[in-house]
């Protein structure tokens, strides 16, 4: 064998040395060495400025570029991002009466154009979002902020107008990142939406910069040359493509390998499982606060009422009775729903606030068991009897017949069919409706089919909240939040449930600082809604995303942008 350059044993030793002492074979090679990263969001981003859009797709697409001072990691813990540390009362970052929080930027931070990041940029971001006539979508993050004062070029103090038990609203999380003052300075107030160039390609501090953006189609990013960690990101280019549907997105990662990452795949578990079996990719799931629920309408949606339809002027003739609502809840087998619709990506829940653990109530476990006999008995007691023997109960000549609507989605239609069958066994007849998701969630005050107008008796959708603090979320069920003609049908109290005692407790929570007391209040608020059966929680939904087999570093985060740690993503060489 003339071609042999070294004896076998020597070769082995050389190889070993190369492996052990030489360059690492995979990962952390250097910035841009892993080529192109292809991400698929089946809802396409339309703008890259999170302050001008409430859409998750836009906020997450912007999160590659724009970064906050601190954000939540995959466990829901708050971690410093552009700030050196997270201010607490212990480290002196928050003052004694909790009206001031002081943030200090990391040393040497630069924008992607090479200029330094300063405290002025932070102050400007607050001014940008609170400017008159700007229509800032994240205004509630800055609610109660009296001033943001610049202490020195790296330090700012956020001053609240009242003690703030939870001061991590402004500049925390993907929805409230720092904007560059130099770029947005001419875009305050009413001029904000007109600054197309800035809104489509913001200068940021994140691992990527925008190279090309076609709204509602595709974003092309390049690695940020001034990113603070020299060897990151591993990818030199990232492409975020939008459009299509969840099934096509899952297929593109799991079966054809055209993309590396696909987001938010609400598909039946057997469909996803079959796709994942081909081995090109894997599914990742994580639980957050998203709960699939049935909302009960407390107002009468009868079309004969005209403009007074679904308003508080007319309480719902059937569902105002708690016993009926309770019977509807008891007839549902949540374990079966979870198995059919979500598999491992779902958990049975009886709470509106399923997480973080400290806020999750433990006193509603009874709903986990289906009780058809008990539900039927309860309806009987409420005066609903099947006097004509047609299988549907009546009372005073009115049939117990409900309209049940939701958005068009295969899993939701399956849920509708199964729940209809259960309700039928207890003598409740259901008419099903499904509405295209873009109309149903479209918030168009002119459309009769939005979930806010709620021209039906019950409806099903999922809801969640930002970050880890449920106060703002629980405040959604106060009386004033009900959508009605007076507020153009905007508002979050979809079922128009109203309990003055609840409103008082929400106000109490807003003034409570100690975390244990806040948690106790949150659990009590949750119990009030759930035990009055104003909302019937069904499934605690995990987020499911698909990741290509050779993509490493993904830590699915349900508390922040899914792309929060994209700087760490890399090829594993498998």
């Amino acid at each position: 064998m003339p071609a042999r350059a070294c004896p076998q044993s020597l070769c082995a030793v050389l190889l070993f040395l190369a492996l052990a002492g030489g360059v690492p074979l995979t990962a952390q090679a250097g910035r841009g060495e892993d080529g192109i990263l292809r991400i698929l969001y089946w809802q396409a981003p339309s703008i890259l400025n999170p302050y001008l859009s409430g859409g998750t797709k836009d906020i997450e697409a912007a999160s590659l570029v724009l970064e906050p001072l601190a954000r939540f990691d995959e466990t829901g813990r708050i971690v410093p991002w552009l700030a050196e540390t997270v201010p607490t009362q212990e480290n002196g970052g928050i003052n004694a009466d909790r009206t001031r929080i002081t943030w200090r930027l990391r040393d040497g931070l630069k924008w992607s154009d090479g200029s330094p990041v300063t405290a002025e940029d932070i102050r400007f971001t607050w001014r940008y979002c609170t400017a008159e006539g700007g229509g800032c979508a994240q205004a509630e993050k800055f609610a109660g902020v009296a001033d943001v004062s610049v202490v020195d070029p790296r330090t700012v103090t956020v001053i609240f107008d009242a003690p703030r038990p939870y001061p991590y609203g402004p500049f925390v999380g993907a929805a409230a990142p720092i904007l560059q003052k130099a770029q947005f300075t001419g875009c305050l107030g009413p001029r904000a939406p007109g600054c197309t160039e800035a809104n489509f390609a913001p200068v940021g501090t994140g691992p990527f910069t925008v190279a090309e953006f076609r709204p509602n189609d595709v974003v092309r990013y390049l690695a940020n040359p001034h990113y603070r960690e020299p060897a990151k990101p591993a990818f030199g280019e990232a492409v975020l493509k939008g459009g299509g549907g969840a099934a096509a997105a899952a297929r593109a990662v799991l079966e054809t390998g055209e993309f590396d990452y696909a987001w938010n795949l609400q598909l039946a578990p057997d469909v996803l499982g079959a796709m994942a079996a081909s081995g090109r990719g894997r599914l990742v799931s994580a639980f957050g606060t998203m709960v699939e629920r049935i909302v009960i309408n407390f107002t009468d949606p009868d079309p004969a009422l005209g403009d007074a339809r679904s308003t508080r002027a007319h309480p719902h003739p059937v569902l105002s009775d708690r016993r009926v609502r309770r019977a509807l809840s008891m007839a549902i087998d949540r374990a079966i729903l979870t198995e059919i619709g979500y598999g491992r990506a779902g958990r049975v829940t009886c709470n509106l606030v399923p997480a973080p653990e400290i806020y999750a109530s433990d006193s509603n476990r009874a709903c986990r068991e289906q009780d058809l006999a008990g539900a039927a008995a309860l309806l009987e007691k409420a005066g609903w009897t099947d006097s004509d023997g047609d299988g549907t109960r009546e009372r005073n000549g009115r049939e117990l017949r409900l309209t049940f609507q939701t958005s068009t989605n295969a899993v939701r239609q399956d849920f509708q069919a199964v729940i209809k069958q259960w309700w039928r066994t207890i003598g409740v007849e259901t008419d099903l409706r499904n509405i295209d998701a873009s109309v149903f969630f479209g918030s168009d005050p002119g459309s009769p089919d939005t979930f806010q107008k709620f021209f039906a008796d019950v409806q099903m959708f999922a809801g969640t909240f930002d970050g880890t603090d449920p106060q703002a979320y629980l405040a959604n069920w106060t009386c004033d939040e009900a959508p009605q003609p007076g507020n153009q049908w905007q508002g979050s109290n979809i079922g128009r449930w109203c309990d003055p005692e609840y409103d008082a407790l929400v106000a109490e929570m807003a003034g409570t600082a100690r975390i244990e007391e806040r948690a106790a209040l949150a659990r009590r608020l949750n119990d009030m809604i759930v035990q009055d059966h104003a909302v019937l929680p069904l499934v605690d939904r995990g987020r499911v995303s698909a990741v290509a087999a050779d993509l490493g570093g993904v830590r699915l985060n349900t508390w922040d942008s899914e792309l929060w740690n994209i700087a760490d993503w890399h090829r594993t060489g498998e």
Partner: protein
Amino acid sequence: MTEPAAPGRNRALLRRFTRHRGAVAGAAVFLAIVAAVWLGPFLWRVDPAAIDILARNRGPAPAHPLGTDQLGRDMLARLLAGGRISVAVGLAAMALSLGLGGLVGLLAGWVRWLDGGLMRLTDLFLSLPLLPLLLVMVMLFRESLAAAFGPQTGIFLLIVFAIGITSWMPTARLVRAAVLEIRERDFILAAHAAGTAHVAMVTRHILPNVMSPVLVSATLGIANAIVTESALSFLGLGFPPDFPTWGRLLSDATVYLQTHPGRVIWPGAAISLTVLAINYTGDGLRDALDTRHRMTGPSRI
């Protein structure tokens, strides 16, 4: 000068029709499908909406000849129930569009001063984009109809009406052309001379002679209505989601295309087969009825 006596004419028509093999096969298949969806649910007495959580995604077996879907509902029962609705929608919408188209065509052809206006109206309807119009109609009228007739009858009427009102135009044009041609014939002149009244003229002389284009467009209309209903259901805008129609079954099954192809194939095949069978029948009818075609076609030899 006058037409041959009816019985003899019908027999000749039947003979010519049966000579077209595709048409005979098509008619047989269509009748078989109608019989199956009409009588099937009486023979196969499984509730198409009954959910059996424990028997999800089963393959074909004696208990479920076509297997079960993702909620354990029997596919055969759903296919039969779905066919009932799809075929009923097809027939009813066809009848409506035929009646409307026939009337407009007849009036335009017979009453000279109505011709211009009615034909422009036809052009107007032809230029309307069909699907957006249907969507708007469904959105506007669904609730009031559901309140008046119940959700299922209401949406049935709405869909039949929507399809009928948007598909009468070709029939109207065909009928008008036929009427214009016939009114110049000698036997009409003779009937005029004999003092026949207008109404009798239309019912006795015109209508029997325009049956050929009407029948052909009727068959095509059924196929068209079934496909439109399927498209609406596929878009999630047709019947309520728990109401199986062929289009709905197809739309529900698309995500299972790879794992359970049968669920797509059966309703898909049912739609295709029905439409194909009807088209063949229409083809045969046209050949049998069309005199000019008869003169030049191969059946002449």
